[in-house]
């Protein structure tokens, strides 16, 4: 599980691979609930770049992608956003996006 800083994030983005990024914060209960799900998906999809962005530490990234509710999970491919899920979702919702784009 990668914890992205802005620089790390931009670098990963530039590599163009399928990315799943979990925007979270320590004070967000639902984010903590989603954490293990994201980790499990990280293990299940080794070719997908899975990472987390702490919105308190990386305000610029949160603003850049208009994250206004957390958790927000954004999917990227070829450096661009292809989908996002706002709020806690069952794992199937994320799997659907990963399977369709891997």
């Amino acid at each position, binding site marked *: 599980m990668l914890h992205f800083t802005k620089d790390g994030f931009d670098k990963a983005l530039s590599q163009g691979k399928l990315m799943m990024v979990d925007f979270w914060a320590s*004070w967000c*209960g639902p984010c903590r609930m989603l954490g293990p799900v994201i980790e499990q998906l990280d293990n299940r999809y080794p070719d997908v770049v899975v990472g987390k962005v702490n919105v308190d530490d990386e305000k610029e990234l949160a603003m850049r992608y208009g*994250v*206004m509710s957390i958790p927000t999970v954004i999917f990227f491919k070829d450096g661009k956003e292809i989908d996002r899920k706002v*709020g806690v979702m*069952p794992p199937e919702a994320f799997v659907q996006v990963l399977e369709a784009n891997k």
Partner: protein
Amino acid sequence: MTYDILILGRGPAGLSAAVAARGRGKSVLVMGGPWQGSPLAKAERIDNYLGLPGVTGQELLEQFDRHARQAGAEFAQGRVVSLMSWDGSVMATVGSQVYQGRGLILAPGVVRQNKYPGEETLLGRGVSYCATCDGMLYRGKAAAVVGRSADAPEEANYLRSIGCTVTYIGDKRPEKLDGEIPFVREKQLKIKGESAVTAVETDGQTIPCAGVFILRSAVAPTDLMPGLRVEKGVVQVDRNMATNLAGVFAAGDCTGGPLQIAKAVGEGLTAALTACQYIDGKAKQ
């Protein structure tokens, strides 16, 4: 800690389920707002609850609550924000606390309100149902609170305390609302904005804001638990009160009419017994 049964809702269905589950020796956590927020608390006279003609809603709720407490149910007061069923257990977030359970009974009551114009499209883009979850993202910005629940004033005060510029919108100014927060009447409310919230219109006024917190006393079931089978706002259950999701049961007004206390109490009991069977069955595996 993991409870045997998490119960969402502290009304007759939830409390009946709690008592029944405790009767089977299960650990129970009842999650939900204060009972004063229940529509039942406003009922001045109930004549069709068996054995207790003329009772008030408040009296009944107090008795139900006391029974569940005496039976040993635990309580987590606050807004249930999200639910998730995963890997054989269920999880619920109340405020910023996460709870885990082996079974879940949904008894949130009914949402007697349609969504506001703009609410659905802007959900997650400025529209939020939880101040404790998303409030920090609006620090230093303007936020409107649409108060339709007993705890809404406290959530508005919380937002102000973390640095949001708050405007409270409701039917009448609540006592608990911080004196510094302006109050505006709710009338023909609309949420404005294209890709994100820009303002709220109400009672002929336009209030520019970056976020709108809509605080109802019950969250619509599909907003709470994506994947749950709901038809026209009614949670679909079989006669054992099981939903389409494993380990998730429902009872009371949320499963449809008649919207009556006796039905809720009966369904709460049934849901609890089915949940207990489910848990016991899994334990044997």
